[in-house]
Protein backbone atom coordinates (compact mmCIF):
# COMPACT_ATOMS: atom_id res chain seq x y z
CA UNK A 1 0.00 0.00 0.00
CA UNK A 2 2.78 2.42 0.93
CA UNK A 3 4.46 1.45 -2.31
CA UNK A 4 1.45 2.43 -4.36
CA UNK A 5 1.26 5.76 -2.50
CA UNK A 6 4.89 6.38 -3.33
CA UNK A 7 4.32 5.60 -6.99
CA UNK A 8 1.24 7.82 -7.02
CA UNK A 9 3.15 10.70 -5.51
CA UNK A 10 5.93 10.16 -7.95
CA UNK A 11 3.61 10.29 -10.95
CA UNK A 12 1.72 13.26 -9.62
CA UNK A 13 4.98 15.08 -8.93
CA UNK A 14 5.95 14.39 -12.49
CA UNK A 15 2.66 15.70 -13.88
CA UNK A 16 2.91 18.78 -11.64
CA UNK A 17 6.36 19.48 -12.96
CA UNK A 18 5.10 18.98 -16.50
CA UNK A 19 2.27 21.40 -15.82
CA UNK A 20 4.68 24.05 -14.58
CA UNK A 21 6.74 23.81 -17.72
CA UNK A 22 3.68 23.72 -19.92
CA UNK A 23 2.02 26.73 -18.31
CA UNK A 24 4.92 29.06 -19.07
CA UNK A 25 5.28 27.79 -22.62
CA UNK A 26 1.59 28.05 -23.47
CA UNK A 27 1.47 31.61 -22.21
CA UNK A 28 4.44 32.47 -24.42
CA UNK A 29 2.71 30.93 -27.41
CA UNK A 30 -0.61 32.57 -26.55
CA UNK A 31 1.05 36.00 -26.28
CA UNK A 32 2.44 35.63 -29.78
CA UNK A 33 -1.10 35.23 -31.17
CA UNK A 34 -1.82 38.96 -31.42
CA UNK A 35 -5.53 38.64 -32.17
CA UNK A 36 -6.00 36.34 -29.18
CA UNK A 37 -4.22 38.79 -26.90
CA UNK A 38 -6.34 41.67 -28.25
CA UNK A 39 -9.46 39.55 -27.77
CA UNK A 40 -8.52 38.85 -24.17
CA UNK A 41 -7.98 42.56 -23.45
CA UNK A 42 -11.27 43.58 -25.12
CA UNK A 43 -13.10 40.86 -23.23
CA UNK A 44 -11.57 41.97 -19.92
CA UNK A 45 -12.57 45.58 -20.62
CA UNK A 46 -16.13 44.53 -21.51
CA UNK A 47 -16.41 42.44 -18.36
CA UNK A 48 -15.04 45.21 -16.13
CA UNK A 49 -17.32 47.81 -17.74
CA UNK A 50 -20.36 45.52 -17.32
CA UNK A 51 -19.62 44.59 -13.72
CA UNK A 52 -18.46 47.94 -12.35
CA UNK A 53 -19.79 50.43 -14.93
CA UNK A 54 -23.37 50.59 -13.61
CA UNK A 55 -22.09 51.88 -10.22
CA UNK A 56 -20.72 55.01 -11.87
CA UNK A 57 -23.74 55.87 -13.97
CA UNK A 58 -26.33 58.47 -13.14
CA UNK A 59 -29.25 56.29 -14.28
CA UNK A 60 -30.36 52.79 -13.36
CA UNK A 61 -31.11 50.38 -16.23
CA UNK A 62 -34.80 50.13 -15.26
CA UNK A 63 -35.46 53.73 -14.28
CA UNK A 64 -37.96 55.29 -16.72
CA UNK A 65 -37.96 58.94 -17.68
CA UNK A 66 -41.32 59.75 -19.24
CA UNK A 67 -40.16 63.19 -20.29
CA UNK A 68 -37.51 61.80 -22.60
CA UNK A 69 -38.78 58.79 -24.53
CA UNK A 70 -36.81 57.56 -27.55
CA UNK A 71 -34.52 60.57 -27.13
CA UNK A 72 -31.42 60.60 -29.35
CA UNK A 73 -28.01 60.63 -27.65
CA UNK A 74 -27.16 63.91 -25.89
CA UNK A 75 -25.18 65.20 -22.89
CA UNK A 76 -27.48 63.64 -20.27
CA UNK A 77 -28.20 60.28 -21.91
CA UNK A 78 -24.96 59.47 -23.70
CA UNK A 79 -26.58 56.77 -25.86
CA UNK A 80 -30.12 58.13 -25.78
CA UNK A 81 -33.22 56.52 -24.26
CA UNK A 82 -35.52 53.67 -25.33
CA UNK A 83 -39.29 53.44 -25.84
CA UNK A 84 -39.88 53.42 -22.06
CA UNK A 85 -37.51 56.34 -21.43
CA UNK A 86 -34.75 54.14 -19.99
CA UNK A 87 -31.10 55.10 -20.40
CA UNK A 88 -29.60 52.99 -23.20
CA UNK A 89 -26.03 53.14 -21.85
CA UNK A 90 -27.12 51.91 -18.41
CA UNK A 91 -29.08 49.09 -20.05
CA UNK A 92 -26.19 48.23 -22.34
CA UNK A 93 -23.81 47.73 -19.41
CA UNK A 94 -26.19 45.82 -17.18
CA UNK A 95 -27.14 43.68 -20.22
CA UNK A 96 -23.46 42.82 -20.46
CA UNK A 97 -23.62 41.24 -17.01
CA UNK A 98 -26.61 39.12 -18.05
CA UNK A 99 -25.27 38.03 -21.44
CA UNK A 100 -21.78 37.17 -20.17
CA UNK A 101 -23.22 35.35 -17.15
CA UNK A 102 -25.53 33.27 -19.34
CA UNK A 103 -22.52 32.31 -21.45
CA UNK A 104 -20.41 31.27 -18.47
CA UNK A 105 -23.11 29.40 -16.53
CA UNK A 106 -24.61 27.56 -19.53
CA UNK A 107 -21.17 26.34 -20.60
CA UNK A 108 -20.27 25.37 -17.02
CA UNK A 109 -23.41 23.22 -16.89
CA UNK A 110 -22.71 21.35 -20.10
CA UNK A 111 -19.00 20.96 -19.49
CA UNK A 112 -19.82 19.32 -16.15
CA UNK A 113 -22.33 16.95 -17.78
CA UNK A 114 -20.05 16.29 -20.75
CA UNK A 115 -16.97 15.52 -18.68
CA UNK A 116 -18.85 13.08 -16.42
CA UNK A 117 -20.68 11.28 -19.26
CA UNK A 118 -17.64 11.24 -21.54
CA UNK A 119 -15.39 10.04 -18.74
CA UNK A 120 -17.74 7.22 -17.81
CA UNK A 121 -18.28 6.20 -21.45
CA UNK A 122 -14.56 6.18 -22.20
CA UNK A 123 -13.42 4.53 -18.99
CA UNK A 124 -16.16 1.94 -18.52
CA UNK A 125 -16.76 1.19 -22.18
CA UNK A 126 -19.06 -1.66 -23.25
CA UNK A 127 -22.81 -1.15 -23.34
CA UNK A 128 -22.62 1.91 -21.06
CA UNK A 129 -20.48 3.58 -23.71
CA UNK A 130 -22.95 2.52 -26.42
CA UNK A 131 -25.96 3.96 -24.60
CA UNK A 132 -24.28 7.27 -23.79
CA UNK A 133 -22.98 7.75 -27.31
CA UNK A 134 -26.34 6.92 -28.94
CA UNK A 135 -27.93 9.45 -26.57
CA UNK A 136 -25.37 12.00 -27.74
CA UNK A 137 -26.20 11.20 -31.39
CA UNK A 138 -29.87 11.72 -30.63
CA UNK A 139 -29.40 15.10 -28.95
CA UNK A 140 -27.19 16.18 -31.85
CA UNK A 141 -29.79 15.16 -34.42
CA UNK A 142 -32.29 17.63 -32.98
CA UNK A 143 -31.88 21.17 -34.25
CA UNK A 144 -30.92 22.81 -30.95
CA UNK A 145 -32.88 26.01 -31.39
CA UNK A 146 -36.23 24.26 -32.07
CA UNK A 147 -35.89 22.10 -28.96
CA UNK A 148 -34.78 25.10 -26.95
CA UNK A 149 -37.74 27.25 -27.96
CA UNK A 150 -40.07 24.32 -27.28
CA UNK A 151 -38.61 23.76 -23.81
CA UNK A 152 -38.55 27.47 -23.03
CA UNK A 153 -42.19 27.81 -24.05
CA UNK A 154 -43.08 25.03 -21.61
CA UNK A 155 -40.81 26.10 -18.75
CA UNK A 156 -41.46 29.81 -19.32
CA UNK A 157 -38.87 32.30 -20.53
CA UNK A 158 -36.38 33.51 -17.89
CA UNK A 159 -32.62 33.96 -17.48
CA UNK A 160 -32.42 30.82 -15.39
CA UNK A 161 -34.32 28.64 -17.88
CA UNK A 162 -32.23 29.92 -20.79
CA UNK A 163 -29.02 28.95 -18.97
CA UNK A 164 -30.49 25.60 -18.00
CA UNK A 165 -31.80 24.66 -21.45
CA UNK A 166 -28.62 25.69 -23.29
CA UNK A 167 -26.65 23.81 -20.62
CA UNK A 168 -28.76 20.66 -20.91
CA UNK A 169 -28.46 20.46 -24.70
CA UNK A 170 -24.82 21.43 -25.20
CA UNK A 171 -23.04 18.39 -23.73
CA UNK A 172 -22.64 15.96 -26.68
CA UNK A 173 -19.52 17.51 -28.29
CA UNK A 174 -17.73 17.66 -24.91
CA UNK A 175 -18.82 14.09 -24.17
CA UNK A 176 -17.40 12.84 -27.49
CA UNK A 177 -14.17 14.72 -26.89
CA UNK A 178 -13.63 13.49 -23.33
CA UNK A 179 -14.57 9.93 -24.30
CA UNK A 180 -12.01 9.96 -27.10
CA UNK A 181 -9.27 11.24 -24.78
CA UNK A 182 -10.17 8.67 -22.13
CA UNK A 183 -10.10 5.83 -24.65
CA UNK A 184 -6.58 6.67 -25.69
CA UNK A 185 -5.31 7.68 -22.26
CA UNK A 186 -6.52 4.63 -20.36
CA UNK A 187 -4.15 2.42 -22.34
CA UNK A 188 -1.14 4.67 -21.75
CA UNK A 189 1.75 3.47 -19.60
CA UNK A 190 1.28 5.85 -16.70
CA UNK A 191 -2.37 4.84 -16.27
CA UNK A 192 -1.63 1.13 -16.60
CA UNK A 193 1.18 1.63 -14.08
CA UNK A 194 -1.00 3.26 -11.48
CA UNK A 195 -3.72 0.65 -12.10
CA UNK A 196 -1.21 -2.13 -11.50
CA UNK A 197 -0.26 -0.54 -8.18
CA UNK A 198 -3.89 -0.95 -7.12
CA UNK A 199 -5.03 2.67 -7.25
CA UNK A 200 -8.85 2.86 -7.11
CA UNK A 201 -10.77 3.70 -10.31
CA UNK A 202 -11.97 7.12 -9.20
CA UNK A 203 -8.45 8.16 -8.23
CA UNK A 204 -7.14 7.07 -11.62
CA UNK A 205 -9.89 9.02 -13.37
CA UNK A 206 -9.51 12.25 -11.42
CA UNK A 207 -5.77 12.37 -10.78
CA UNK A 208 -4.28 10.74 -13.83
CA UNK A 209 -6.63 10.75 -16.79
CA UNK A 210 -8.79 13.86 -16.40
CA UNK A 211 -5.97 16.43 -16.06
CA UNK A 212 -4.49 15.12 -19.29
CA UNK A 213 -7.85 15.21 -21.09
CA UNK A 214 -8.70 18.78 -20.11
CA UNK A 215 -6.83 20.69 -22.81
CA UNK A 216 -9.29 20.07 -25.66
CA UNK A 217 -12.19 20.63 -23.22
CA UNK A 218 -10.89 24.11 -22.32
CA UNK A 219 -10.60 25.05 -25.99
CA UNK A 220 -14.04 23.66 -26.80
CA UNK A 221 -15.63 25.39 -23.79
CA UNK A 222 -14.18 28.73 -24.88
CA UNK A 223 -15.79 28.46 -28.32
CA UNK A 224 -18.91 27.13 -26.57
CA UNK A 225 -19.19 30.32 -24.56
CA UNK A 226 -19.29 32.34 -27.76
CA UNK A 227 -22.03 30.01 -29.07
CA UNK A 228 -24.02 30.32 -25.84
CA UNK A 229 -23.91 34.12 -25.95
CA UNK A 230 -25.14 34.05 -29.56
CA UNK A 231 -27.90 31.60 -28.66
CA UNK A 232 -29.06 33.68 -25.69
CA UNK A 233 -29.06 36.77 -27.91
CA UNK A 234 -31.17 35.00 -30.55
CA UNK A 235 -33.66 33.69 -27.98
CA UNK A 236 -34.00 37.07 -26.27
CA UNK A 237 -34.32 38.73 -29.67
CA UNK A 238 -37.25 36.40 -30.42
CA UNK A 239 -38.78 37.31 -27.04
CA UNK A 240 -38.15 33.82 -25.65
CA UNK A 241 -35.10 34.53 -23.52
CA UNK A 242 -34.34 37.15 -20.91
CA UNK A 243 -37.50 39.16 -20.27
CA UNK A 244 -37.74 42.95 -19.90
CA UNK A 245 -37.37 44.99 -17.73
CA UNK A 246 -34.12 43.02 -17.23
CA UNK A 247 -31.86 43.99 -20.12
CA UNK A 248 -29.86 41.61 -22.29
CA UNK A 249 -28.16 42.53 -25.56
CA UNK A 250 -30.58 40.25 -27.41
CA UNK A 251 -33.77 41.69 -25.99
CA UNK A 252 -32.54 45.26 -26.59
CA UNK A 253 -32.33 44.30 -30.28
CA UNK A 254 -35.90 43.03 -30.13
CA UNK A 255 -37.07 46.66 -30.48
CA UNK A 256 -35.52 46.78 -33.96
CA UNK A 257 -38.21 44.44 -35.27
CA UNK A 258 -40.22 47.63 -35.67
CA UNK A 259 -39.36 49.32 -38.97
CA UNK A 260 -39.68 52.83 -37.47
CA UNK A 261 -37.11 52.07 -34.76
CA UNK A 262 -34.85 50.29 -37.25
CA UNK A 263 -34.94 53.20 -39.65
CA UNK A 264 -35.01 56.23 -37.38
CA UNK A 265 -33.48 55.23 -34.03
CA UNK A 266 -30.21 53.42 -34.69
CA UNK A 267 -28.96 54.29 -31.18
CA UNK A 268 -31.44 51.72 -29.84
CA UNK A 269 -30.19 48.71 -31.80
CA UNK A 270 -26.68 49.36 -33.12
CA UNK A 271 -24.87 49.49 -29.71
CA UNK A 272 -26.20 46.15 -28.36
CA UNK A 273 -25.47 44.49 -31.71
CA UNK A 274 -21.90 45.77 -31.68
CA UNK A 275 -21.46 44.62 -28.06
CA UNK A 276 -22.47 41.07 -29.05
CA UNK A 277 -20.09 41.11 -32.02
CA UNK A 278 -17.23 42.51 -29.90
CA UNK A 279 -17.62 39.98 -27.09
CA UNK A 280 -18.23 36.93 -29.30
CA UNK A 281 -15.39 37.83 -31.67
CA UNK A 282 -13.03 38.35 -28.70
CA UNK A 283 -13.96 35.01 -27.19
CA UNK A 284 -13.49 33.25 -30.54
CA UNK A 285 -10.03 34.80 -30.93
CA UNK A 286 -9.08 33.79 -27.39
CA UNK A 287 -10.29 30.27 -28.20
CA UNK A 288 -8.19 30.22 -31.37
CA UNK A 289 -5.14 31.39 -29.40
CA UNK A 290 -5.70 28.76 -26.74
CA UNK A 291 -6.04 26.04 -29.38
CA UNK A 292 -2.78 27.06 -31.03
CA UNK A 293 -0.98 27.35 -27.70
CA UNK A 294 -2.32 24.28 -25.91
CA UNK A 295 -2.83 21.74 -28.64
CA UNK A 296 0.17 21.10 -30.87
CA UNK A 297 -1.83 18.69 -33.04
CA UNK A 298 -4.15 21.30 -34.53
CA UNK A 299 -1.38 23.76 -35.30
CA UNK A 300 -2.16 25.53 -38.55
Amino acid at each position, binding site marked *: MSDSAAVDTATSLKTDADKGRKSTSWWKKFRRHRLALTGMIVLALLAIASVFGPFFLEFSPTQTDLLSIKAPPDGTHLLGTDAAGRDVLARLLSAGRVSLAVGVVAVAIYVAIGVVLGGVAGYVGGWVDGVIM*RLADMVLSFPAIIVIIT*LVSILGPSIFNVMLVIGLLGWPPITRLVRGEFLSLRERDFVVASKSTGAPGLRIIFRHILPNALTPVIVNATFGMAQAILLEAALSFLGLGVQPPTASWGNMLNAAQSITILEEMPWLWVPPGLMIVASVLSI*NFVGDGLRDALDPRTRR
Partner: protein
Amino acid sequence: MARYLLRRLVISIPVLIGITLATYLIANLAPGDPVTALLNPEQMSNLGPDWVEEQKESLGLNDPLPVRYLIWLKETATGNLGFSSADRLPVSEKIGERLWPTIKLMTTVLIVSVVVGIPLGVLSALRQYSWIDYLLTFAGFVTVSIPSFFLALVLIYIFSLKLDWLPTSGMYTLGQERTFLDSFRHMVLPAAVLGLAQAAPLIRYTRASLLETIQQDYVTVARAKGVAESVVIVRHALRNALIPIITIIALDVPRLLGGTIVIEQVFSWPGMGTLAIAAVQGRDYNVLMGINLIAATMILISNLLADALYAMVDPRIKYG
Protein backbone atom coordinates in the same frame (compact mmCIF):
# COMPACT_ATOMS: atom_id res chain seq x y z
CA MET B 1 -23.71 -0.49 -51.82
CA ALA B 2 -27.41 -1.16 -51.36
CA ARG B 3 -26.60 -3.26 -48.32
CA TYR B 4 -24.49 -0.51 -46.83
CA LEU B 5 -27.28 2.03 -47.24
CA LEU B 6 -29.82 -0.41 -45.87
CA ARG B 7 -27.66 -0.87 -42.78
CA ARG B 8 -27.36 2.89 -42.30
CA LEU B 9 -31.14 3.10 -42.61
CA VAL B 10 -31.66 0.38 -40.00
CA ILE B 11 -29.26 2.07 -37.59
CA SER B 12 -31.23 5.30 -37.86
CA ILE B 13 -34.47 3.60 -36.73
CA PRO B 14 -33.60 3.56 -32.99
CA VAL B 15 -32.56 7.20 -33.29
CA LEU B 16 -35.90 8.02 -34.91
CA ILE B 17 -37.81 6.13 -32.18
CA GLY B 18 -35.76 7.96 -29.55
CA ILE B 19 -36.68 11.25 -31.17
CA THR B 20 -40.39 10.45 -31.10
CA LEU B 21 -40.11 9.40 -27.44
CA ALA B 22 -38.26 12.57 -26.46
CA THR B 23 -40.74 14.66 -28.44
CA TYR B 24 -43.67 13.00 -26.69
CA LEU B 25 -42.15 13.37 -23.23
CA ILE B 26 -41.41 17.05 -23.80
CA ALA B 27 -45.01 17.59 -24.91
CA ASN B 28 -46.18 15.90 -21.73
CA LEU B 29 -44.18 18.36 -19.64
CA ALA B 30 -46.51 21.10 -20.82
CA PRO B 31 -48.97 22.23 -18.16
CA GLY B 32 -52.73 21.67 -18.56
CA ASP B 33 -54.63 19.07 -20.56
CA PRO B 34 -56.57 19.20 -23.83
CA VAL B 35 -60.00 19.08 -22.14
CA THR B 36 -59.60 22.05 -19.80
CA ALA B 37 -57.69 23.91 -22.51
CA LEU B 38 -60.82 23.94 -24.70
CA LEU B 39 -63.22 25.25 -22.06
CA ASN B 40 -63.52 28.71 -20.61
CA PRO B 41 -63.70 28.84 -16.80
CA GLU B 42 -67.41 29.62 -16.79
CA GLN B 43 -68.32 26.55 -18.86
CA MET B 44 -66.07 24.48 -16.68
CA SER B 45 -67.81 25.44 -13.44
CA ASN B 46 -71.20 24.66 -15.07
CA LEU B 47 -70.10 21.23 -16.25
CA GLY B 48 -68.27 20.36 -13.03
CA PRO B 49 -65.09 18.41 -12.35
CA ASP B 50 -66.88 15.06 -12.78
CA TRP B 51 -67.68 15.85 -16.40
CA VAL B 52 -64.09 16.89 -17.07
CA GLU B 53 -62.88 13.64 -15.51
CA GLU B 54 -65.35 11.66 -17.67
CA GLN B 55 -64.16 13.38 -20.81
CA LYS B 56 -60.53 12.72 -19.93
CA GLU B 57 -61.35 9.06 -19.31
CA SER B 58 -63.20 8.71 -22.63
CA LEU B 59 -60.36 10.43 -24.52
CA GLY B 60 -57.85 8.05 -22.98
CA LEU B 61 -56.00 10.82 -21.17
CA ASN B 62 -55.97 8.81 -17.94
CA ASP B 63 -54.17 5.88 -19.55
CA PRO B 64 -50.62 5.26 -18.41
CA LEU B 65 -47.91 7.21 -20.25
CA PRO B 66 -46.47 4.25 -22.23
CA VAL B 67 -49.96 3.40 -23.56
CA ARG B 68 -50.62 6.98 -24.60
CA TYR B 69 -47.20 7.11 -26.26
CA LEU B 70 -47.88 3.99 -28.31
CA ILE B 71 -51.27 5.29 -29.44
CA TRP B 72 -49.67 8.61 -30.37
CA LEU B 73 -46.87 6.81 -32.22
CA LYS B 74 -49.40 4.81 -34.22
CA GLU B 75 -51.30 7.95 -35.20
CA THR B 76 -48.07 9.79 -36.03
CA ALA B 77 -46.95 6.92 -38.24
CA THR B 78 -50.15 7.26 -40.28
CA GLY B 79 -49.55 10.98 -40.73
CA ASN B 80 -51.98 12.22 -38.08
CA LEU B 81 -50.14 14.82 -36.03
CA GLY B 82 -53.23 16.11 -34.24
CA PHE B 83 -54.86 19.50 -34.49
CA SER B 84 -53.63 23.01 -33.83
CA SER B 85 -55.10 24.49 -30.67
CA ALA B 86 -55.08 27.92 -32.32
CA ASP B 87 -57.38 27.33 -35.30
CA ARG B 88 -58.37 23.63 -35.12
CA LEU B 89 -56.66 22.89 -38.46
CA PRO B 90 -54.75 19.59 -38.80
CA VAL B 91 -51.11 20.05 -37.83
CA SER B 92 -49.91 18.12 -40.88
CA GLU B 93 -51.78 20.57 -43.14
CA LYS B 94 -50.38 23.61 -41.34
CA ILE B 95 -46.82 22.33 -41.48
CA GLY B 96 -47.31 21.11 -45.05
CA GLU B 97 -47.98 24.58 -46.41
CA ARG B 98 -44.98 26.02 -44.52
CA LEU B 99 -42.53 23.28 -45.49
CA TRP B 100 -41.93 24.39 -49.07
CA PRO B 101 -40.88 28.00 -48.30
CA THR B 102 -38.41 26.73 -45.69
CA ILE B 103 -36.98 24.07 -48.00
CA LYS B 104 -36.77 26.62 -50.82
CA LEU B 105 -34.83 29.02 -48.57
CA MET B 106 -32.57 26.27 -47.20
CA THR B 107 -31.76 24.88 -50.65
CA THR B 108 -30.90 28.34 -51.97
CA VAL B 109 -28.67 28.92 -48.93
CA LEU B 110 -26.89 25.60 -49.45
CA ILE B 111 -26.21 26.46 -53.09
CA VAL B 112 -25.00 29.96 -52.17
CA SER B 113 -22.72 28.64 -49.44
CA VAL B 114 -21.15 25.99 -51.72
CA VAL B 115 -20.69 28.43 -54.60
CA VAL B 116 -19.07 30.99 -52.28
CA GLY B 117 -17.33 28.73 -49.77
CA ILE B 118 -15.53 26.13 -51.88
CA PRO B 119 -13.84 28.48 -54.41
CA LEU B 120 -12.76 30.82 -51.60
CA GLY B 121 -11.43 27.86 -49.63
CA VAL B 122 -9.44 26.71 -52.67
CA LEU B 123 -8.10 30.23 -53.17
CA SER B 124 -7.13 30.39 -49.50
CA ALA B 125 -5.25 27.09 -49.73
CA LEU B 126 -3.44 27.89 -52.98
CA ARG B 127 -2.31 31.25 -51.59
CA GLN B 128 -1.49 29.89 -48.12
CA TYR B 129 -0.15 32.58 -45.73
CA SER B 130 -0.79 35.35 -48.28
CA TRP B 131 -2.76 38.47 -47.39
CA ILE B 132 -5.89 37.00 -48.99
CA ASP B 133 -5.56 33.87 -46.85
CA TYR B 134 -5.33 35.96 -43.67
CA LEU B 135 -8.15 38.20 -44.82
CA LEU B 136 -10.45 35.22 -45.44
CA THR B 137 -9.56 33.67 -42.08
CA PHE B 138 -10.29 36.96 -40.33
CA ALA B 139 -13.54 37.39 -42.30
CA GLY B 140 -14.52 33.86 -41.29
CA PHE B 141 -14.10 34.74 -37.62
CA VAL B 142 -16.15 37.89 -38.01
CA THR B 143 -18.89 36.00 -39.88
CA VAL B 144 -19.34 33.37 -37.18
CA SER B 145 -19.27 36.07 -34.49
CA ILE B 146 -22.08 38.25 -35.86
CA PRO B 147 -25.56 37.19 -34.73
CA SER B 148 -27.39 36.40 -37.98
CA PHE B 149 -30.38 38.51 -36.96
CA PHE B 150 -28.16 41.55 -36.32
CA LEU B 151 -26.53 41.17 -39.74
CA ALA B 152 -30.02 40.85 -41.22
CA LEU B 153 -31.13 44.08 -39.51
CA VAL B 154 -28.04 45.91 -40.77
CA LEU B 155 -28.65 44.68 -44.34
CA ILE B 156 -32.34 45.63 -44.18
CA TYR B 157 -31.31 49.07 -42.89
CA ILE B 158 -28.84 49.58 -45.75
CA PHE B 159 -30.42 47.85 -48.75
CA SER B 160 -34.12 48.18 -48.01
CA LEU B 161 -34.57 51.31 -45.93
CA LYS B 162 -31.72 53.57 -47.07
CA LEU B 163 -31.08 52.44 -50.66
CA ASP B 164 -34.56 51.03 -51.28
CA TRP B 165 -33.21 48.31 -53.57
CA LEU B 166 -34.76 45.24 -51.97
CA PRO B 167 -37.97 44.43 -50.06
CA THR B 168 -37.82 44.22 -46.25
CA SER B 169 -39.91 41.07 -45.79
CA GLY B 170 -42.05 38.29 -47.20
CA MET B 171 -41.62 35.89 -50.10
CA TYR B 172 -43.65 37.82 -52.71
CA THR B 173 -45.05 41.31 -53.03
CA LEU B 174 -48.64 41.12 -51.89
CA GLY B 175 -51.31 41.80 -54.51
CA GLN B 176 -48.85 41.49 -57.39
CA GLU B 177 -48.36 38.84 -59.98
CA ARG B 178 -45.81 36.27 -58.75
CA THR B 179 -42.87 36.73 -61.08
CA PHE B 180 -39.45 35.11 -60.80
CA LEU B 181 -37.79 38.50 -60.46
CA ASP B 182 -40.06 39.41 -57.55
CA SER B 183 -39.39 36.20 -55.64
CA PHE B 184 -35.67 36.55 -56.41
CA ARG B 185 -35.61 40.05 -54.93
CA HIS B 186 -37.25 38.74 -51.76
CA MET B 187 -34.77 35.88 -51.56
CA VAL B 188 -31.57 37.97 -51.84
CA LEU B 189 -31.24 39.25 -48.26
CA PRO B 190 -32.24 36.14 -46.25
CA ALA B 191 -30.16 33.90 -48.54
CA ALA B 192 -27.17 36.26 -48.25
CA VAL B 193 -27.30 36.35 -44.43
CA LEU B 194 -27.64 32.58 -44.03
CA GLY B 195 -25.36 31.80 -46.98
CA LEU B 196 -22.49 33.77 -45.46
CA ALA B 197 -22.92 32.04 -42.09
CA GLN B 198 -22.86 28.62 -43.80
CA ALA B 199 -19.98 29.50 -46.14
CA ALA B 200 -17.57 30.54 -43.36
CA PRO B 201 -16.83 27.04 -41.97
CA LEU B 202 -16.87 25.66 -45.53
CA ILE B 203 -13.99 27.97 -46.50
CA ARG B 204 -11.90 26.76 -43.57
CA TYR B 205 -12.59 23.07 -44.15
CA THR B 206 -12.01 23.26 -47.91
CA ARG B 207 -8.70 25.04 -47.26
CA ALA B 208 -7.56 22.48 -44.67
CA SER B 209 -8.68 19.51 -46.78
CA LEU B 210 -6.97 20.77 -49.96
CA LEU B 211 -3.73 21.58 -48.10
CA GLU B 212 -3.70 18.04 -46.75
CA THR B 213 -4.41 16.47 -50.13
CA ILE B 214 -1.68 18.46 -51.89
CA GLN B 215 0.89 16.74 -49.66
CA GLN B 216 -0.21 13.27 -50.76
CA ASP B 217 2.19 11.12 -52.75
CA TYR B 218 -0.08 10.82 -55.81
CA VAL B 219 -0.08 14.61 -56.17
CA THR B 220 3.73 14.64 -56.05
CA VAL B 221 3.75 11.84 -58.64
CA ALA B 222 1.43 13.78 -60.92
CA ARG B 223 3.67 16.83 -60.64
CA ALA B 224 6.78 14.72 -61.26
CA LYS B 225 5.20 13.34 -64.41
CA GLY B 226 5.05 16.92 -65.64
CA VAL B 227 1.29 17.36 -65.52
CA ALA B 228 0.30 21.03 -65.70
CA GLU B 229 -0.14 22.55 -62.23
CA SER B 230 -3.75 23.58 -62.91
CA VAL B 231 -4.61 20.01 -63.92
CA VAL B 232 -2.85 18.65 -60.83
CA ILE B 233 -4.88 20.93 -58.59
CA VAL B 234 -8.27 20.46 -60.23
CA ARG B 235 -8.13 16.83 -61.39
CA HIS B 236 -5.91 15.19 -58.78
CA ALA B 237 -6.07 17.22 -55.58
CA LEU B 238 -9.39 19.05 -55.52
CA ARG B 239 -11.58 16.10 -56.45
CA ASN B 240 -10.24 14.11 -53.54
CA ALA B 241 -10.18 17.07 -51.19
CA LEU B 242 -13.90 17.63 -51.73
CA ILE B 243 -14.94 14.19 -50.45
CA PRO B 244 -14.88 15.06 -46.72
CA ILE B 245 -16.57 18.38 -47.52
CA ILE B 246 -19.78 16.46 -48.32
CA THR B 247 -19.95 15.36 -44.69
CA ILE B 248 -19.20 18.87 -43.45
CA ILE B 249 -22.11 20.25 -45.47
CA ALA B 250 -24.50 17.58 -44.18
CA LEU B 251 -23.40 17.92 -40.57
CA ASP B 252 -24.05 21.64 -40.79
CA VAL B 253 -27.72 21.19 -41.74
CA PRO B 254 -28.94 21.40 -38.09
CA ARG B 255 -27.18 24.74 -37.70
CA LEU B 256 -28.70 25.93 -40.96
CA LEU B 257 -32.17 24.88 -39.83
CA GLY B 258 -31.70 26.76 -36.55
CA GLY B 259 -30.48 29.85 -38.38
CA THR B 260 -33.40 29.64 -40.80
CA ILE B 261 -35.88 29.81 -37.92
CA VAL B 262 -34.47 33.08 -36.59
CA ILE B 263 -33.99 34.62 -40.03
CA GLU B 264 -37.52 33.69 -41.14
CA GLN B 265 -38.79 35.70 -38.20
CA VAL B 266 -36.72 38.78 -39.15
CA PHE B 267 -37.89 38.66 -42.78
CA SER B 268 -41.45 37.43 -42.06
CA TRP B 269 -40.70 34.48 -44.34
CA PRO B 270 -43.81 32.25 -44.41
CA GLY B 271 -41.96 29.06 -43.42
CA MET B 272 -41.72 26.62 -40.52
CA GLY B 273 -39.67 29.07 -38.46
CA THR B 274 -42.33 31.75 -38.26
CA LEU B 275 -44.89 28.99 -37.64
CA ALA B 276 -42.76 27.68 -34.75
CA ILE B 277 -42.44 31.12 -33.15
CA ALA B 278 -46.19 31.71 -33.50
CA ALA B 279 -46.83 28.28 -31.97
CA VAL B 280 -44.55 29.10 -29.02
CA GLN B 281 -46.32 32.37 -28.41
CA GLY B 282 -49.73 30.68 -28.65
CA ARG B 283 -48.60 27.64 -26.62
CA ASP B 284 -49.70 25.46 -29.53
CA TYR B 285 -47.89 22.30 -28.45
CA ASN B 286 -49.23 19.95 -31.14
CA VAL B 287 -47.82 22.22 -33.83
CA LEU B 288 -44.51 22.52 -31.96
CA MET B 289 -44.21 18.74 -31.62
CA GLY B 290 -44.95 18.32 -35.31
CA ILE B 291 -42.24 20.82 -36.21
CA ASN B 292 -39.75 19.10 -33.87
CA LEU B 293 -40.50 15.78 -35.52
CA ILE B 294 -40.24 17.10 -39.08
CA ALA B 295 -37.02 18.96 -38.29
CA ALA B 296 -35.38 15.92 -36.70
CA THR B 297 -36.46 13.79 -39.68
CA MET B 298 -35.01 16.32 -42.11
CA ILE B 299 -31.69 16.14 -40.29
CA LEU B 300 -31.73 12.35 -40.27
CA ILE B 301 -32.40 12.29 -44.02
CA SER B 302 -29.59 14.77 -44.69
CA ASN B 303 -27.19 12.55 -42.73
CA LEU B 304 -28.29 9.49 -44.69
CA LEU B 305 -27.90 11.38 -47.96
CA ALA B 306 -24.39 12.38 -46.94
CA ASP B 307 -23.51 8.75 -46.17
CA ALA B 308 -24.87 7.66 -49.54
CA LEU B 309 -23.03 10.39 -51.46
CA TYR B 310 -19.85 9.67 -49.56
CA ALA B 311 -20.01 5.98 -50.40
CA MET B 312 -20.71 6.79 -54.05
CA VAL B 313 -17.81 9.19 -54.62
CA ASP B 314 -15.15 7.50 -52.49
CA PRO B 315 -14.31 4.01 -53.73
CA ARG B 316 -11.99 3.50 -50.72
CA ILE B 317 -14.98 3.20 -48.40
CA LYS B 318 -15.85 -0.38 -47.68
CA TYR B 319 -19.56 -0.83 -47.39
CA GLY B 320 -21.09 -4.08 -46.41
